[in-house]
């Protein structure tokens, strides 16, 4: 303690230094880091057990240990814990950013290779293993039609269901519906695909198709709507709950029946939030592969009729090209993946921006 007192005597201290806890100097942490890296490099290259990656990993562990020891000696155990956990939390962040940056980088650099007009104007019809061309036009058509039909099915159903939960339902039954909507959120996409396979493709579609089961884009739309429904119900429900009661009361006071109040006052007020939820659901559905694989079958040709014959989708196109042995297939897969991610991200960002402008924010 005497040393600190003498060192402070040169300039007038703002407060008596004996009241301050002793702290590690600012240069301590970087110094420990450099020492840890150097030590780890010596260990790793000295014993020849690995490369630069191991140096960094071992260095990080040594740094944590060294930081704990130094802080423990100078500042005490509690502060040492604080510093170590803080370093751990920061390194968790760095650890997670690395793969995600790699995903984005790969997506952009590999996807740009075939990101040309030809890719968006042609299908995979008559494209052999040696053809460098081929595109995803049919897949984009499929994605748009399937997601469009799924939205047409889900939005009325989901909004009405949410209205029931919020405005009409009470007691055990409404609680059960609310609970099972939540449970439905977790149904795996492949199970919804199997359900539509067992229900629509194998049982219902033979009636329209001379007794033979038939894949179709509409079946994929059904499977996607099973996945979209809970998302839309939940977001609509939350938005309806945020509509201020005085709005309803004002309408009731004017003698407007309840159904008209809901349709003319409550739903329009909550509309931006509802649209946000719908867009997020669409974004999620557009990226689903498994249900489309099971019930739409996929196909190489352009098929604009969603009710007959196989249809592809962007995500399924990515999966199929990934499994293709042609040396041109990976480039097509990555470009389709880039297109898909761009589509999904544009929808998501638009939805989030819309949510920010929403007056009914929490």
């Amino acid at each position, binding site marked *: 303690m005497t040393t600190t007192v003498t060192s402070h005597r040169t300039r007038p201290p703002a407060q008596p230094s004996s009241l301050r806890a002793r702290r590690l100097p600012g240069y301590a942490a970087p110094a420990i880091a450099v020492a840890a890296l150097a030590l780890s490099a010596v260990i790793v290259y000295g014993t020849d057990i690995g490369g630069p990656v191991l140096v960094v990993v071992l260095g990080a562990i040594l740094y944590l240990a060294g930081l704990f020891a130094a802080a423990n000696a100078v500042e005490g155990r509690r502060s040492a814990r*604080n510093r170590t956990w803080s370093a751990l939390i920061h390194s968790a962040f760095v650890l997670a950013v690395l793969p995600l940056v790699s995903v984005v980088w790969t997506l952009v650099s590999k996807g740009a290779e075939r990101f040309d007009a030809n890719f968006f104007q042609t299908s995979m019809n008559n494209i052999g293993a040696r053809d460098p061309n081929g595109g995803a036009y049919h897949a984009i058509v499929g994605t748009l039609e399937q997601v469009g039909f799924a939205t047409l099915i889900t939005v009325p159903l989901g909004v009405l269901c949410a209205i*029931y939960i919020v405005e009409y339902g009470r*007691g055990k039954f409404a609680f059960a519906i609310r609970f099972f909507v939540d449970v439905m*959120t977790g*149904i795996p996409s492949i199970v919804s695909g199997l359900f539509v396979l*067992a229900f629509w493709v194998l049982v219902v579609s033979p009636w329209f198709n001379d007794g033979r089961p038939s894949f179709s884009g509409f079946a994929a739309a059904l499977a996607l709507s099973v996945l979209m429904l809970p998302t839309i119900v939940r977001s609509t429900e939350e938005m309806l*709950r945020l509509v201020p009661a005085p709005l309803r009361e004002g309408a009731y006071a004017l003698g407007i029946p*309840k159904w008209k109040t809901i349709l003319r006052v409550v739903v329009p007020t909550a509309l931006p939030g509802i649209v946000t939820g719908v867009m997020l659901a669409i974004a999620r559905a557009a990226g689903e592969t498994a249900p489309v694989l099971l019930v739409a079958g996929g196909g190489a040709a352009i098929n604009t009729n969603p009710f007959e014959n196989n249809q592809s989708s962007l995500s399924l196109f990515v999966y199929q090209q990934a499994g293709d042995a042609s040396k041109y297939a990976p480039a097509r897969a990555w470009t389709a993946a880039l297109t898909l991610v761009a589509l999904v991200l544009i929808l998501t960002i638009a939805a989030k921006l819309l949510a920010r402008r929403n007056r009914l924010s929490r």
Partner: protein
Amino acid sequence: MGETPHRSADAGTGGTRVTQSHEWPAGASARVAEAPVSTRSPGGDGLGGGGALPRSRKFGAERAFRGLTLAAGTAVLVIIAAIAIFLIAKAVPALRANTENFWSYEGWSPNETQPKFGIGTLAFGTVLSAALALLMAVPVALGIALYLSHYAPRRLGTALGFLVDLLAAVPSVVFGLWGRDIFINPVRDFSVWLNEYFGWLPIFGGDGPFGKSIMLGALVLAIMVLPIITSLSREVFLQTPTANEEAALALGATRWEMLRTAVLPYGRPGIIAAVMLGLGRALGETIALALTLGITFGISFNLIQNGGNTIAANIANAFGEANETGRGALIASGLVLFTITLIVNITARAIIYRRREFTESAA
């Protein structure tokens, strides 16, 4: 509208417990107003207004609309029931045709004249890969969530939180493709290294080839569930009452002690729910695992040798060449997956519902 009560509609509509325990809850105006239109009979000794109120009609727009919404609500229950019914109906014939034990047979060849298939190895692979993924993802996700909510500068935290939400929306097939084409190289190097120095551990043993292993699948899965868990637990951490945090700091707690004593206990139900939802996602993940696992049948704890399979990945891989029994067998395996995820989800939801304040964030 500055004075509008916050969430005023809750009391009258959603919070069932509140409405049941009080005759006239604060926000029950909806119910009061609805009465004159549909339920009160004219001239009854109910509220004021008496005979001047319009008569209730049997087939009015009000009833039609109410019936419509009720039908939409019931549709949810019908869909869940229909999923179970149709899966069972299509699975039973295949299970009857199975010549081996469905639970214990190690292999999947339902398309032959003597169909043989068993769920044991697939269920094992599903649970193993999901558990490993969570083991790796949860600590990191909680770390990021704490960083975003309590360490990062506020604006940076909000921006990065937005980014995390975006990452949760990236389709799984993209992660699968990345795992198979790019991420496999460092994982293979790491596997070889582990095998060389830790080969005496059974989980890192074997003679190769390495790469398309449970470890790659679980790592890709971990990267995929990371944004989901992070985004949910970040919201829960942000909900911690400032008074609790400030009280801890005022008592002289360091930042970590404040997190440990004020933030983490408060967020525990939310964390559990986030982890369970991540588990549900990991169990049901299909395409990413179909692309990254080595697809073998057999129960092995070896993490780094080519191999591994899950129920969902097997459905995606085997569906192409499945005949009728094959499809039934795949549907039977889907039924098992449905049951597992249903149990996980119901447990998660039951935990969330016990602390209702978290229901809004855990959508």
